[in-house]
């Protein structure tokens, strides 16, 4: 082989290996840094081990927001129309955090089943539902439908989604 070509080939080979290694590392690091979204139903069913960082979301249940007497702690529940999860958060809530609004929280489940949030997100548009929450609501509705059909639809008057303790 022509020495010039050999040199070139070696350079290309080096680059390919370097790029390959970088991609491998990047993908590994990516897999360590993803936060899965879990619906309240999934959490209520115990599908999420405590301590793992996930994103959880749903509609904030009316009347469930309770502020601590001191400091900035706040506790509220979110629902997907089927199950509810209590969330505790310490800090400033976003402007569009309201009862009935769809939110997404990042954090971990503690051993008592409370979701300890480090971040609470609500988008700056009252018409906008976080897509994950939208999906969770739909899933819950689908589940509700399936359950009803299993119950042989004897009680067709039952409304969809259990509501949330109004």
């Amino acid at each position, binding site marked *: 082989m022509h020495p010039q070509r050999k040199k070139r080939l070696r350079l290309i080979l080096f680059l390919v290996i370097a790029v390959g290694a970088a991609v491998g590392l990047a993908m590994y690091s990516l897999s360590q840094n993803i936060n899965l979204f879990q619906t309240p139903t999934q959490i209520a069913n115990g599908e999420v081990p405590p301590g793992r960082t996930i994103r959880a979301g749903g509609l904030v249940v*009316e009347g469930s927001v309770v502020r601590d007497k001191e400091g900035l702690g706040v506790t509220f529940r979110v629902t997907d129309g089927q199950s509810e999860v209590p969330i505790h958060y310490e800090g400033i809530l976003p402007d569009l955090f309201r009862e009935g609004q769809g939110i997404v929280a990042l954090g971990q489940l503690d051993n008592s089943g409370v979701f300890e949030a480090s971040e609470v997100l609500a988008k700056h548009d009252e018409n906008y539902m976080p897509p994950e929450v939208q999906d969770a609501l739909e899933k819950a509705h689908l589940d509700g439908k399936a359950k009803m059909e299993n119950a042989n639809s004897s009680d067709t008057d039952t409304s969809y989604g259990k509501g949330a303790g109004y």
Partner: protein
Amino acid sequence: MNRILLFVPLAIFALMGITFWVGLGIEDKTSLPSPLIDHPFPEFELGVVEDGRTLTTADLQGKPALVNVWATWCPTCKAEHAFLNELAADGVRIVGINYKDDVEKARDWLAAFGNPYDYNLSDPKGKLGLELGVYGAPETFLVDADGIIRAKHIGDLNADVWKKLKPQFDAMSGAEQ
């Protein structure tokens, strides 16, 4: 060999394109318009915006209706209101759900922009909305004379959307007559 290498970017792009396309195809199949379709309208017992009387699910039945979820805080609702007025003028029965809103504001709105609704159910807490799986206003449901939900549209109702919904609505009205 060099020549083949030059096709690599194109191949990668084509692969990405196909993934996108297939992925979107899957998405379209799994996401039903609404799980409520072909199911009865949820039970309710709510006050009416216009005169305060209380209505229940039974009052919805008897005649096909467009059930329109709206609110005075919703800009898109304002945008679609004119079209609803047109539909009402054409004899379409529209029932409103005033979603997470203030009755006084809703009355002012109806006085200012016209009232295309047969009546408006006041749903200040969004309870009925939740049961209907409403993500935000506006949303519109097609409900037949037996109170069964037949179709759902998210977003504003306009001439284009109505073109698609109208045949279904006409069929419902035809069956009733």
